[in-house]
Each structure stands twice: as structure tokens, then as C-alpha cells.
């Protein structure tokens, strides 16, 4: 009985997870696809080709196509530049990798600079070496006198 209930729940979850893929809305697809002529997303374009693409999306949704199937069909016609977000493969991968690589290089540079800066500063702030030249006795006596004036 318990196993059957678990199986039912799993089935329901799988069905709901697949629903997003199986039932895309025109609005979400139009925001993820670009008009090949005016190069803005379809939802902000009224160019003739954009209107035709919007009609195509509605036809394919009505026919039961998934989001990825509709996108693949449009990429097949117009090329990958119709995708608002570039795919994570091939030449388009650069669009994903380059900013991360830049960030990594920036972090390394900042880290190196911070390391250098902290080492330089530590050298400046180090207390005088005790093993250096002894103080002049007269000066040491004067210093003791001065300090004594401030002691309660």
C-alpha cells in the first residue's frame, strides 16, 4: 500500500516536471527567441518575420510540440542566432566561458595584488628589531622620565 502511494507520488512529480517541457507558453518562447531581422526578442517585435514566427510558435504549441522541439525547428530555419541565450556548445560556448574566465583572471590578479600589498605593509609595520643598536643611556633615561610623568 505504502509502496503504491510512493509510486503514485513519483508519477505525479514526473508528470509535473515534464509539464514545463511539454506545455510551453507562447509568451515564454517569445521571450527566449530573437527576430532575425530586427534582432530583438520576439515579444518586443512586430516585424513581419517576427509575426510569422509568433504564428509558427502558436501552431507548434497547439500541435503539442515541446519547447526544445519548437526551438530546434526555428534554429533549423534561421540558425542559432534566433536563440536569445546562446547554446552551451560549439563557438557559442565562448559567450559562457569568457566572462567566467575573465572573472577568474580578475580574482587571481586581485589576490596577487592583495598578497603583495599585505607583505609590503607587514614590513613597514614591524616593530624595531630588539637586537639593533642599544639606545643612548642619556636618551633612555630621558624617555623613562617622560613616561614616568604620565604614570599615575
Amino acid at each position, binding site marked *: 500500500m505504502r509502496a503504491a502511494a510512493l509510486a503514485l507520488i513519483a508519477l505525479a512529480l514526473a508528470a509535473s516536471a515534464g509539464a514545463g517541457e511539454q506545455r510551453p507558453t507562447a509568451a515564454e518562447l517569445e521571450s527566449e527567441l530573437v527576430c*532575425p*531581422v530586427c534582432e530583438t526578442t520576439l515579444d518586443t517585435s512586430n516585424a*513581419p*518575420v517576427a*509575426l*510569422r514566427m509568433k504564428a*509558427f510558435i502558436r501552431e507548434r504549441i497547439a500541435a503539442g510540440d515541446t519547447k526544445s522541439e519548437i526551438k530546434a525547428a526555428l534554429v533549423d*530555419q*534561421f*540558425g542559432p542566432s534566433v536563440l536569445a541565450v546562446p547554446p552551451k556548445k560549439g563557438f557559442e560556448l565562448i559567450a559562457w566561458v569568457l566572462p567566467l574566465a575573465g572573472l577568474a583572471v580578475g580574482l587571481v590578479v586581485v589576490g596577487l595584488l592583495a598578497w603583495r600589498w599585505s607583505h609590503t605593509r607587514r614590513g613597514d609595520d614591524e616593530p624595531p628589531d630588539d637586537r639593533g643598536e642599544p639606545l643612548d643611556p642619556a636618551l633612555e633615561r630621558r624617555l623613562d622620565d617622560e613616561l614616568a610623568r604620565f604614570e599615575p
Partner: protein
Amino acid sequence: MTQRLRLAGQVAAVLVVAALLGLLGWKLMQDESAVTSELDQGGSPAAPAFTLERLDGKGELALASLRGKTVVLNFWASWCGPCKDETPLLQEGWKRWQGKDVVFVGIDVKDFRGDAKDFLARYGVTYANVYDGKGSTVGRYGVTGFPETYFVDASGKVRYRIAGPVEDAAELDAGIKRALAPA
């Protein structure tokens, strides 16, 4: 050691900047309408080569295979309003010039294949048409809108261009005659 590191960093920075500038230049070259600008300056630029899928299902068509003939290259799309007015005129022109070493080629750009085939059937187009859904030829020719027609001479040089629809038979014939005239 620190000096060496600094030098390596400077070299790397210069290389990155050079690479980015190179990428920018390459992109600008891709977009650069070299044909249009050279034509506007009175030159006869070489027609950029292409090999594209034919819309009649007979494989591919390469511009190079038409060398020795005058080519009327018409950029169009099924969603383009003026293209609808222009196409019957081009079809009539094709009938007039067929067999006189003049070839008409339509390049359907940024369009659905199915829509393009329907369009050609609706207007009874019999000259060759190729499909360029990605618009790879647009930037190289410097197409500024649709329709646009280029006249390529027998040696593969662009001799004339009509931006916008061809208005009448006289304008079309004048373009062809310019491409047929000796350079």
C-alpha cells in the same frame, strides 16, 4: 622573479587586448557591406561566393557554377510586402532574357522554407531560387533591405544594384544591360 612575473602579466594583457581587437575587426569585416560601398564608389567588386540549397529540391547551387553568364541576383523573403509586387516582374523578365546567357537567381533570406516554396508556387516562379534562412549572404553583399537586386557580369563582378523593388521592366533591363556591357 617579480620583474619576470610583471613582464609576463603585461605581455598577457597586450595579447588579450590584441585578440579582442582582432575579434572586433573580424566581426566588422563580416558585417561590412564591401560590395555596396565599392559599388557606390563606382567600382565593380567581386560577387561574394555562395553555395546554397535550392528551393526546388535539386540539391545546391553555387554562384561559381554560373561564371560566364550574367546573373540577376534577387534577395527576397515571403514575408516581405514589396517582394510580392516585384516577383511577377522578375518572372516576366526571366522569360524575356532566358536563353541569352542571362540567369535569374532568387535568394530567399531569413524565411521559412515552406513559406518560400508556397510563395514561389503562388507566383509561378520558374527561375532558380536558393534558401538562405540564416542570412549568411546578407552581410557579405551589404543588403540593406528586401527586396534588393544585384547584377553580376560574366566574370563574376557586381556591376549594378537596385535597392528596393525593381519598379518596371525598363529598370530591370537597364540593370542587365549594364552587366552585359564590357567592363
